[in-house]
């Protein structure tokens, strides 16, 4: 696990990003449990998602696909983000 910390975005990271960039408070356990639910379940809007994408791009110094906002659920989103990070690693 430790080897991948720098290259993977975890549920905890996502919960922290949602809080900081979009003001959405969500328990990471609940986010994990319901990661197949739509963003609106957690109160995150499209601009909030855009902010999270921008933050991840800055943090990891890489570009994410333009269609990131099409990811409807946290699970889809993390799969795409971590897929890109794996390729880049």
């Amino acid at each position: 696990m430790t080897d991948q910390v720098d290259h993977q975005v975890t549920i905890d990271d996502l919960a922290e990003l949602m809080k900081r960039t979009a003001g959405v408070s969500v328990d990471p356990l609940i986010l994990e449990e319901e990661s197949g639910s739509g963003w609106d379940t957690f109160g995150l809007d499209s601009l909030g998602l855009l902010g999270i994408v921008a933050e991840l791009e800055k943090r990891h110094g890489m570009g994410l696909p333009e269609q990131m906002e099409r990811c409807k659920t946290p699970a889809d989103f993390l799969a795409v983000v971590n897929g890109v990070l794996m390729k880049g690693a």
Partner: protein
Amino acid sequence: MSRQRPRRAVVTGLGVVTPHGIGTDVFWKTVKEGGSSLAPVGKEGCDHLPLRIAGEVRDFDADALIEGTFLVQTDRFTHFAMAATQLALDDAGFGRADIDSPYSVGVFTAAGSGGGEFGQRELQKLWGQGPRHVGPYQSIAWFYAASTGQISIRNGFKGPCGVVAGDEAGGLDALAHAAHAVRRGTDAVVVGATEAPLAPYSIVCQLGYPELSRNDDPQRAYRPFTTAACGFVPAEGGAMLVVEEERAARERGADPRATLAGHAATFTGASRWADSRSGLARAISTALTEADCRPEDVDIVFADALGVPEADEAEALALTDALGPHARRVPVTAPKTGMGRAYCAAPVLDVATAVLAMEHGTIPPTPNVFDICHHVDLVVGRARAAELRTALVLSRGLMGFNSALVLRQGSVPPPERRSASV
């Protein structure tokens, strides 16, 4: 058309966020006593700017009043608007149960300064760190329209919504839009204006106004209608009102506190203060006609009171032009000299004050002003007891907009005449 009784727009709730404090109780207490909350500008990053005195809202805890999702995407002026809206809804006793349909409640706001604090922060990131560091909410937070949108979203109000960008006088124009929406069939409208123009960026934007007071004494910086007038002091804060159709208000058990009886607006050009005389006089006359009131029905005037000699003179003359001999007798007041001018929010705060003044039978005084050099009966020093049934609120903007609004106490029709449909 049917012979139904005309729909009247009445005020049922007030919410204020002001340099005097938050909520109408503390606000009215200070206003009535002629208190002043003008003070040296205390905002971070403003020390070096030539604006010394302002009316700042202190002890406003946005985190305690507004959810995180709304906080991160909005500027301070919208925080004020959301907080004032909640206060106004509570004041009106207007809850979820009172809403038949989300489409029966509208929102109108006016804004003149926009989200300067939020905008400055993001622009600093843009030039300091690069485009990728600008957050997406910059696209909505600093627009004039932000408060209407966020109030609508936060409360689920889907009725007619609008934003007035019409200079300071736009605050009164927003109330007129709300009254029209009510007359056309909307049961309730949340309406008003809030401003937060005291971030460094926003202050710099105002430094070009020759009307801005640069005096450094809180007691001398804003003294309209005197020979010592040296401009106006800016302020932040504002007011939101709940305006309802009279019958709808009564049906849910709310008392009409005042009727929005008449309004008119004119334009006479930026900083052409002598010309504002005719524009303001025309606005007053037209608003009185719409309210079916005669000049002598006016019991109190809330003056624009810019604090620029030429503008003060034009306002005094406009009152004479529009009210005739009654202009010498009618009490005039400008409580804003104790708070500063919060741009679009200034006349809305005057409307809120007018409602409270009519309810209390008390004319609040004009703080810091003595030795009036114009022919107006300006109430200074102490509050004056008076029976107030009709109030006239005036507003002018630095860009040349003039507006007048007539309020009637409760829902009583104009004196000695049948109420006309307005």
